[in-house]
């Protein structure tokens, strides 16, 4: 390949084929920027200042003066659930494009401006329900980051040549996360089999064929549909003063116009009536197992109970599944993942088997333990253990500015209200042994499970 020619070609396309979005800032200086202000208790002595600007932008600010830094995160309420068949992976691929040029900055300048200013962890991630852009900055760089983030919210330039190159990067990311990863392949198949109608059916990163067929025009349409202040929450945690942050945010975002939320109907999943199973033959030396059970979305009242249930299953080495699988020599590890998706999703139990062990042994042991939980109530000591584990994880997960911002952004974007996260944590304490038995009966019926096994090719 002639690298020089490729570079020249890219530059030509940048100049000649640049597409600029049509979103423009409202230049009316009399606009009332602030619609609402609330103060919500958080953890310890921390509280969250929540502001809603007139254009719908949410701003969350937590003052933490322990170091002269801040975390700045922008959460958009859009993820792979907003895609349609044939365009899977668009939300994530578009996320990559957000680091390209704008009307005011050339390609690559965004990264250089932030990195030169001392940014840490500049990155982004896309999930089924949201997309987030994250950085940590020295405290005196708030103005800079607010200016750059507001700029790319409305002024992004989607160039066909850079889109094509970035699409290749994402295809490589897919090869890394899925095609050449046994766990990634199993995970993709699990959701693909458990969901038949709902967009959780397809992987966040999309299918290779859909990525191949995607154009810069698709990305542009996506941007115009979902990237606007009324779809976003800005979270700032660190050595700042809330009112000063508000002033900065107002000056950069206050004049941006809100956009209509696109009409997008999402099909509900029909209840699963019988087990679904699939075996994958892979380049692995020990077998793997993943089981999914349908559970409700993030704001459902059963979520705190499911969190305790998960902790009883795999929270710590004394947990039930660790005892039943690892201590007995069936598996080297077993984990369960409590759900945090907006819509009804899966609780996943995953095990890596020991050499020579077969997946049916692990699956039988898991079903046995789940069955026991439908027939007997857990002891108070076991319940306390599970809650202690959750309590520990909750505090440990909120130590840094980044972690606090992530918690708040996640609940605001997924549940619509950060307070939901705090409420759910408090409800953990109320979960009883009877609740656990009830959860086991209602959600862990073996007929409702989806099972993917990975065996040696």
């Amino acid at each position: 390949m002639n690298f020089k020619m490729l570079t020249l070609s890219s530059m030509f396309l940048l100049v000649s084929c640049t597409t600029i979005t049509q979103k423009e800032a409202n230049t009316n200086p009399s606009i009332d920027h602030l619609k609402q202000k609330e103060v919500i208790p958080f953890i310890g002595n921390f509280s969250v200042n929540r502001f809603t600007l007139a254009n719908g932008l949410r701003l969350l600010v937590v003052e933490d003066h322990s170091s002269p830094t801040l975390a700045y995160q922008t959460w958009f309420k859009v993820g792979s659930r907003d895609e349609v068949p044939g365009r899977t992976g668009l939300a994530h691929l578009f996320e990559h494009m957000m680091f390209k040029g704008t009307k005011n900055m050339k390609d690559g300048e965004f990264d250089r401006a932030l990195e030169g200013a001392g940014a840490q962890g500049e990155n982004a991630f896309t999930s089924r329900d949201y997309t987030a852009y994250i950085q940590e900055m020295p405290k005196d760089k708030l103005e800079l980051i607010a200016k750059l983030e507001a700029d790319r919210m409305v002024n992004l330039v989607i160039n066909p040549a850079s889109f094509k190159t970035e699409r290749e990067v994402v295809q490589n990311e897919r090869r890394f996360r899925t095609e050449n990863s046994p766990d990634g392949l199993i995970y993709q198949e699990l959701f693909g089999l458990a969901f038949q109608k709902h967009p959780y059916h397809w992987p966040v990163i999309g299918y290779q064929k859909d990525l191949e067929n995607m154009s810069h025009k698709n990305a542009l349409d996506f941007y115009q549909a979902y990237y606007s202040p009324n779809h976003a929450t800005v979270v700032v945690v660190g050595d700042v003063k809330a009112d000063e942050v508000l002033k900065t945010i107002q000056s950069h975002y206050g004049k941006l116009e809100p956009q209509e939320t696109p009409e997008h109907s999402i099909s509900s999943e029909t209840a699963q009536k019988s087990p679904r199973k699939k075996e994958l033959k892979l380049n692995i030396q020990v077998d793997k197992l993943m089981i999914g059970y349908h559970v409700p979305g993030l704001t459902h009242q059963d979520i705190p109970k499911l969190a305790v249930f998960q902790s009883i299953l795999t929270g710590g080495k004394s947990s039930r599944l660790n005892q039943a699988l690892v201590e007995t020599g069936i598996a080297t590890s077993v984990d369960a993942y409590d759900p945090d998706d907006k819509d009804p999703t899966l609780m996943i139990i995953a095990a890596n088997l020991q050499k020579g062990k077969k997946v049916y042994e692990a699956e039988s042991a898991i079903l046995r333990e789940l069955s026991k939980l439908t027939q007997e109530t857990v002891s108070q000591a076991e319940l306390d253990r599970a809650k202690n584990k959750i309590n520990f994880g909750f505090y440990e997960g909120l130590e840094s500015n980044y972690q606090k911002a992530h918690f708040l952004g996640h609940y605001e974007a997924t549940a619509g209200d950060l307070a939901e996260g705090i409420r759910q944590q408090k409800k953990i304490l109320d979960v009883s042994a009877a609740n656990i038995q009830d959860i086991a009966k209602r959600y862990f019926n073996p007929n409702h499970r989806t099972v993917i096994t990975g065996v040696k090719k």
Partner: protein
Amino acid sequence: MRIQGKTSRLSSFYPALFLISGLLSSATSHAYEVEFEKDKSVPIVYINVAIKGGSVTDPRGQGGLTNFMGEMLLRGTQSKTKEQIDLALDQMGARLDVEIRAEAMIFRGAVLSSQLDPYLKLLNEILTQPSFTDVEIKKLKSEMISTLQEELGHDSSLASRRFSQFLFRGHPYGNPVLGNTQDIEQLSKDQIIAHYRRLVQDKLILVIGTGDASEGKISSWSKELAAMRPNVELSAEESKLLEKVSAPKNAKSKRLLIIDKPDRTQTQINVGQIGIRMTDSDYFPLYLGNYAFGGPSFSSTLMVEIRVKRGWSYGANSSFRFGLQPRSWHLHLFPSAKDTASALGESLKLVRELKEKGISQEQFEFAQRSLANSSGFMYNTPRKRVENKLLERTLDLPDGFMKSYGPKVSKLQRDQVNNALKEFLKPDELSMTVLGTAKNLQTALAKAAGIPVEEVEVRPYTQQ
């Protein structure tokens, strides 16, 4: 098991940065060193017990012994079974794991502050009264061997491990921390006990922590611990195991190993050479030079040339690994199979250009500004300060080394950086490994690497 719930622009750990340490040092009646920083921001206490001896102390034929012994400590004491220990830790809402590095073993503990007293009592018992029962040895062997088998499914970590072995050519820095199947199968109880006796002794132990507890409490607990693990006399042979390893050397010419794995649509490329010590005079110039070339930045040469311009790889970076002796400098990328030879060829060209031309003034100024402005993130939280202290103590770095980055980087001149790069880089002595499907790659890779195809080594990915 790694779960892909969300997908990010770039998976990468950014070692980060600010602040003035509140770490307090105190000498106990024994040689234990204790450092604890009080932090009441969340009701958790972190306690790290580090032992200055890691996987390089594994005797020949006993690969993985340090890791095995460390894991065994968590599996029973004279008065408690593994089950009782696990139950007690979970009841407290606590965590205790062991991490093995080349030159350190670290017991990483964390507990809700309300449970600190029973936790410290249990930790003391775990470290000083292990039982090493036959039942647990047998169980752990089975788990470790299966874990090694399971790792064969993870291309990135497998490629990294194989690269390390290939680069170091028998030097202890190439020893896999987990060992290998054959050695683990043959480990005996006596070998485990002997290793415990020589490693877990007063003079090799540090206690470093942070959290919602008083320094006094941690200090007095450490004194008790010290009293129970006095220094021991070692034979000459045992003492030799604990000596600092010799400095590794590069091979005399370029070498290429293909780790052959079927059905790969993507490869894992690692290219590198022997590195430097953090205390070497060229460390900071090379630290800056590496940042400009392939550091954790979307503006680095590798990222721009490999990812941004050509879309060849999701990640493209270069980094150092450090030890008491020089360890490695290497670059890592993971292109699609079809672009592998081109990506390798381009990477080698970039390394040669880096040696010959150095970095431009613009690259230098950008890297210097970025590193200086972000240097505070290296110590802006209590946990980072604890990690820094662990690094300083286990790698014999001067006190406050990790806080010196900002001022030191700010004083550098471009000539220093480019002279250091010219001296350091050895493009003709690079070790290269590519994990991929060999039949599709061997000829093209040999050409890209400038090595006769018959000199390219090919090994099945299952061969340890």
